[in-house]
């Protein structure tokens, strides 16, 4: 016997009883045809050795109607034929779909239930109809006719799960998710650009390039200044000892005799702070 019976839409999941799920399955299989009380009694109860009253049958049909309604299928999809039986509205569009996603490696089919075609004529109703498609999953091997009549039927094991989902929603939800992702990506990009603009000037301020190592010191020099042999001569001329700090950042231009030496314990970086001693030399004797 099935353990779990659900009518499921994107926003709602409604549990129904086992007999109710069998009744719905039979109505789906015989959509548009009259399903007599006897056929429903046989399909949902008697073949399992149980008996049910007409009152029980009507209660189960009522449960199905309420479940479908809660899941968003507002139309009166199950019509009562007094003292005879029930008909699942032929206007509902029921589609069987292949699916790999359900129970225990069993290949299954899905039934998609859509509202009547007439809803498509009105755009507003069309939107509503998109939200009231359902998928009804049953195992494929069980679709052999067990009850006389046209269309697929199932054995008792056929409905080991009964799921109803909104079929129109995946596309719509996918689109919504796409819009959401696009919007959020735009926000992220904007933030990133703002951040880049505000930090680019910071990065451009660190314009030193590696020059040489000399007496335990590591020298860097401004990349738009003297980076050739003159810079090496400057290093020799400075003749610094680097006991306190290893990294030296030199700034010297061809014109102007000023030299800046910033001597740091750590490398100057965007995030790494450093204790530095700055020297400003207004005139350095040329050799």
């Amino acid at each position: 016997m099935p353990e779990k019976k659900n009518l499921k839409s994107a926003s709602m999941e409604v549990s129904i009883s086992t007999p109710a799920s069998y009744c719905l399955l039979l109505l789906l299989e015989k959509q548009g045809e009259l399903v007599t009380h006897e056929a429903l009694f046989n399909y949902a109860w008697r073949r399992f050795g149980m008996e049910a009253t007409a009152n029980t049958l009507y209660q189960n049909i009522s449960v199905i109607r309420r479940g479908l309604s809660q899941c968003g299928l507002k139309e009166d999809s199950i019509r009562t034929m007094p003292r005879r039986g029930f008909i699942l509205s032929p206007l509902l569009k029921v589609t069987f779909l292949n699916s790999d996603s359900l129970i225990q490696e069993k290949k299954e089919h899905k039934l998609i239930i859509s509202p009547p075609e007439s809803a498509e004529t009105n755009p507003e109703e069309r939107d509503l109809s998109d939200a009231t498609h359902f998928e009804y999953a049953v195992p494929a091997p069980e679709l052999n006719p067990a009850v006389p009549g046209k269309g697929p039927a199932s054995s008792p094991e056929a409905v080991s799960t009964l799921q109803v989902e909104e079929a129109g929603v995946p596309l719509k939800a996918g689109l919504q998710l796409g819009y959401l992702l696009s919007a959020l990506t735009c926000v992220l990009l904007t933030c990133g650009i703002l951040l880049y603009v505000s930090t680019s000037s910071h990065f451009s301020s660190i314009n030193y390039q590696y020059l040489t190592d000399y007496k335990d010191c590591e020298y860097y020099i401004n990349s738009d200044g003297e980076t050739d042999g003159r810079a090496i001569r400057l290093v020799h001329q400075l003749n610094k000892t680097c006991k306190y700090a290893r990294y030296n950042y030199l700034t010297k231009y061809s014109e102007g005799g000023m030299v800046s030496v910033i001597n740091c314990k750590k490398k100057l970086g965007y995030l790494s702070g450093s204790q530095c001693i700055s020297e400003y030399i207004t005139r350095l004797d040329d050799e």
Partner: protein
Amino acid sequence: MNKLKTALIFLFCTISAGLLFLWWYLIALSRNIECVSNYTIHNDTDKMSLLISRKLEHGKGTDTLIGRLYREGKVVGNIERTINYRYIEENSRYTMTTETVLKGVHDDISDKEMAGCLSSLYIKPGTQSVSVIKNIGITGWMVYTSPVPLYFCRKES
């Protein structure tokens, strides 16, 4: 699907908020400067070693200088003064005008000797001086009066 959407929105909002906060922080960092520097100036004959503390906020700035002037290896003067000034900032260029120069009890250096090493911003009220102050990452600022940096000023934590 709804859970996925919620998770995505939460994730993106968190990242965006983080980026915006960082952006705001960097903007604030550029506008409010509070730093300290060890600074040595060499000229032809003298060497001045200073500890400079600088604070700039909302158009008002304060520099505190403590140090010594050396000539041929000997101390010839002590510096201990606080300079208050107002400033106008435009594209990292700060135009400063001295309002007060408050000398400490140990400050015994003459204005002439001071002027040999430092801008008159630190000497006379009413003097105007221009500095360029650029962020070096989030950890400090480089202070310039020309393309050659004067000193690196480390952000005070």
